[in-house]
């Protein structure tokens, strides 16, 4: 279903998308954070892109683990350990279940999200990246279980990610830096949620454009 070569394509697609959304991401963390989230994401994306060839040559689980470790030593801040935990968590799960079905991949994604929740001691509804990631993980699991096509899954997950992002607007923040601001955060989107939406869109678009994923005519 997915190999290290595809993973590398996703990595580059994600970098392109993050760079393209600089203004939005930066602005959000400036409004109710400390303004470094975009530059943190950029630094992480560059570091992973820098792995390039190396990733392609690794087995998928090792590639994911390498990404996690690289992010851990590159991003810093709150998002660094969280995204690192995501990839390390995914890698661990795929070591048990090879990625040979959408269900396995969904399960790995879900495990990554669980790892974030554990590391950050956070849940849905706290105005963080999890408000994008948790609904996406849930839908991914259920769509895969229903046997939906890769195409269908990608289209729906984009939608779910955008809704998750939008849902942070009306929330009070109870985790992360914005939690110090009380009512003042209402009306603002969460920066980490925005990054996740951008990254999920980038990967899904890559999936949708991949000829090998096109439904046979």
């Amino acid at each position, binding site marked *: 279903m997915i190999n290290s070569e595809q993973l590398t394509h996703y990595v580059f697609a994600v970098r392109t998308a993050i760079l393209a959304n600089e203004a939005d991401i930066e602005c959000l963390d400036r409004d109710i954070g400390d303004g470094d989230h975009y530059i943190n994401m950029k630094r992480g994306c560059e570091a992973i892109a820098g792995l390039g060839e190396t990733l392609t040559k690794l087995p998928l689980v090792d590639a994911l683990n390498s990404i996690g470790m690289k992010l851990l030593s590159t991003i*810093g801040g709150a998002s660094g350990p969280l995204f690192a935990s995501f990839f390390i968590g995914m890698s661990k799960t795929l070591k048990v279940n090879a990625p040979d079905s959408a269900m396995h991949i969904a399960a790995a994604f879900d495990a990554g999200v669980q790892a974030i929740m554990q590391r950050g001691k956070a849940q849905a509804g706290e105005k963080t990246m999890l408000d994008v990631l948790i609904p996406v993980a849930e839908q991914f699991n259920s769509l895969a279980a229903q046997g939906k096509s890769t195409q269908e899954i990608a289209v729906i997950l984009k939608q779910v990610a955008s809704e998750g992002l939008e849902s942070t607007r009306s929330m009070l923040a109870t985790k992360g830096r914005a939690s*110090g601001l009380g009512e003042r955060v209402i009306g603002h989107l969460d920066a980490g949620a925005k990054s996740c939406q951008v990254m999920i869109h980038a990967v899904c678009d890559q999936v949708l454009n991949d000829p090998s994923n096109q439904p046979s005519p």
Partner: protein
Amino acid sequence: MKKFLNHVDHMLTESLSGFAAAHHDLVELQLEPTFIARKHKAQNKVALISGGGSGHEPLHAGYVGKGMLDAACPGQVFTSPTPDQMLAAAEAVHAGQGVLFIVKNYAGDVMNFEMAAEMLPFAHATVLTADDCAVVNSTYTTGRRGVAGTVIVEKCVGSLAESGADLASCKALGDKINQRTSSIGVALTSCTVPAAGRPTFDISDSEIEMGVGIHGEPGRRREPIRDADAIIADMVAAIVHDFAAKQLPTQGNILLLVNGLGATPLMELYLIYNTAAKLLTAQGFQITRSLVGNYTTAIDMAGASLTVCLLDDEIQQHWDSPVHTVGLRWGC
């Protein structure tokens, strides 16, 4: 944005290199991963390591030296350092008695130090500082932020560690000081993160941000600027209220720290001290120790914070003991 810089990506390394060069008698810089350690490794004591995002100078690298920290891990500007930095620093300064991390309570710092601690091959403990009383402490938030009170923790625990105390005692003193310390900050202007290139928030000439942290996060509320005395009265009231909430006596000997956030002239800091000292004395406190200056900054923010630490004999003794770092020096 107007700053002395060449390329934003090299700013931190260039600055740390200058720091290490100017103070080569005291400290040593390691790169990849980055940390600052004492020039002369201390022997047979608990190793004290702190760290956090850059932009708060002299915190933490300026507090590396005799009687204070063994190493500091600077992250990118306002961004927690990464676990590999902490591991390398611990490896370099561990002196057989375990490692104490002193961590300001921010999600990023907590998580990165936590992951480092999980991988650490030495006995270890962590003191979380959380002195900022602008943030209401409740189960619904990640809790209070660590701000300028961290300097007091680093100084006093540094002194205790130097005396040969064990890891548990060092942690206990750090936790005690944190519990007895409250801070609150106010900003007149925003700071500008070099990588962002423009001020983190916009604020008019007639407004201030009350209850800011040290990262240019907006404060609890924006309010019209008033006389310094009125602003300071609110800050002192917040601290006194916090002492009461923590069930601390609102009298007794205190250390009063008036901390500049980066762009506030000493003349104003002393004016603030003057008013704060009067109000705290009227409240029943006795100011037996004072510190006024830029000790925990937010890059180039105009603003200041007040920190009050309720002293006892133990804390005062460790505050007074000799210290030789870039940022604090006395008794030697």
